[in-house]
């Protein structure tokens, strides 16, 4: 495919202000791209959530009793062990875990939290090859 070059391509040794303008445009392009992406993902998330809430009511009561109310007591020893293992794994054994308390702002239930931990663990494991 063929693109007309609207701007002269930068070449050789440009002057300072020419270069500054060029770099600013570059950063704006990056921010525009990632910003657009942010908006799209934000909208997508809300759409899917709205849809999920519409679809959920019929089935949401079912899982609720299975997971106890999300208080501090909800951190079972299993979850504790999982978190410890994950953190040791990621940060090395020289790190000590003093206590695990659920973030007070967190609405997610412990299963979701465990999922997060596990998800992160996978990420950290995977990225050794760049």
């Amino acid at each position, binding site marked *: *495919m063929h*693109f007309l070059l609207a*701007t002269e*391509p*930068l*070449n*050789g*040794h*440009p002057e*300072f202000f020419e*270069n*500054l303008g*060029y*770099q*600013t445009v*570059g*950063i704006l*392009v*990056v*921010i*525009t*791209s*990632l*910003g*657009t*992406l*942010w908006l*799209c*993902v*934000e909208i*997508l*998330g809300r759409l*899917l959530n709205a849809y999920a809430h519409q679809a959920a009511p019929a089935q949401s009561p079912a899982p609720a009793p299975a997971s106890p109310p999300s208080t501090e007591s909800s951190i079972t020893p299993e979850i504790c062990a999982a978190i410890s293992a994950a*953190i040791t794994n*990621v*940060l090395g054994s020289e*790190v000590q875990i*003093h*206590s695990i*308390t659920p*973030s007070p*702002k*967190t*609405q*997610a239930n412990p299963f*979701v*939290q465990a*999922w*997060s*931990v596990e*998800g*992160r663990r*996978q*990420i*950290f494991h*995977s*990225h*050794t*090859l*760049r």
Partner: protein
Amino acid sequence: MLKDYLDFFQLTGFPSITWQMPVMWAIVMVLLYLAVYKGFEPLLLVPIAFGALLANLPSVGLVNEPIGAMVSPVAGSVIEMHVKPGEFFEEGALIAVVSNPEGREEIHAHARGQVSVAHKAVGDRVLAGSLLVTAYSSEPGGLFYYISRGIEWEIFPPLIFLGVGALTDFGPLIARPITLLLGGAAQIGVAVTFMAATLLGFTVGESASIGIIGGADGPTAIFLSAKLAPHLLPAIAVAAYSYMALVPLIQPPIMRALTSKQERLIRMTSLRHVGKLEKLIFALLVTILCILLVPAATSLIGMLMLGNFFRECGVTDRLVKTAQNEIINIITIFLGTSVGMTMTGTRFLRQETLLIIGLGVVAFGVSTASGVLMAKFLNLFLKKKINPLIGSAGVSAVPMAARVSQVEGQRADPNNYLLMHAMGPNVAGVIGTAVIAGYYIATVTR
């Protein structure tokens, strides 16, 4: 016979040793030490360093082009032509000399052969790419002539990205998409370093390749410099991978200097669960949007998200495992050694290399600072504040930079777990760097 035996040593590599070689051996030893005993990105630095060792030995049959068409590398006039049709020549023989106002360029034979046709005579004018001589040889090219096609043809970096995509969970980014902006802001380090390099006298192609070190993304750095400044490829690759390993040393002072104790104590709300459909749509969105906005980044972004789609769709298990393992491992071996193979003494032992290594620190530093400052800037508008310590993770260097955020966060408050929050900007940085690389490719002439 004793004479023959002694004569043989004329055939050995000893007479071909140059002063650069032992110096490069020492550099190789340092790199291997860092990789093996200090854990500096060994998967890349071991092949690179071993390749560099081979490149700095008087080897035969390792990197030479195959005989066939010999073209003039520059425009000018043929001022010498040393072969006639039918003549045999040895490896290394001088075939022709082309001269132009900028100097004279000698064309040597890469292997033994016989001249089939001499297309030009002394006095003829030639252009870059004009055919000078066609020759015939039963010798193939060197092993790494063929393997390095993967870098010359820009095949290896996108294939590595296929595997990276298959290894990356974009969930944390999707759960809090505003962190995309942190990954974007970190590219300011790239732009600033580009400008600094230009001021130090590098051309724009070279400067772009040097700046991208600040993106902390090996494959992207190799991709860009193979395109815009292939002669700097080894220095840039070594700097990029070494600094990635040094992230835990480079980032913390900058992070602490730019944040208040109070900011470092900010706790972030737990990330929501992101479902399969959302991840699949995200992969397609990134592909479509980034290619539309920066078409020149297609092969990097396209392969990254292809690998990620394999990962998240749940029905292509065989393919995702292959991308995560066989493909990425095989390509890493070939990519690393090919990069090392370009690291000859004459190319590497130059002032430019020192400048590049210096500029690399600038790049990492400014990227880190921009990420942190962007987080503070966003906090001016946000109700749910972002802990600015995760801004530094926007340089990518996955997952090292996110670990640094976690460690620094816990230094302020041992109960603050920033790790998962830092993964968002961390993977956003990969996309951001690919985008700015695409911008440079589209607008910079080599």
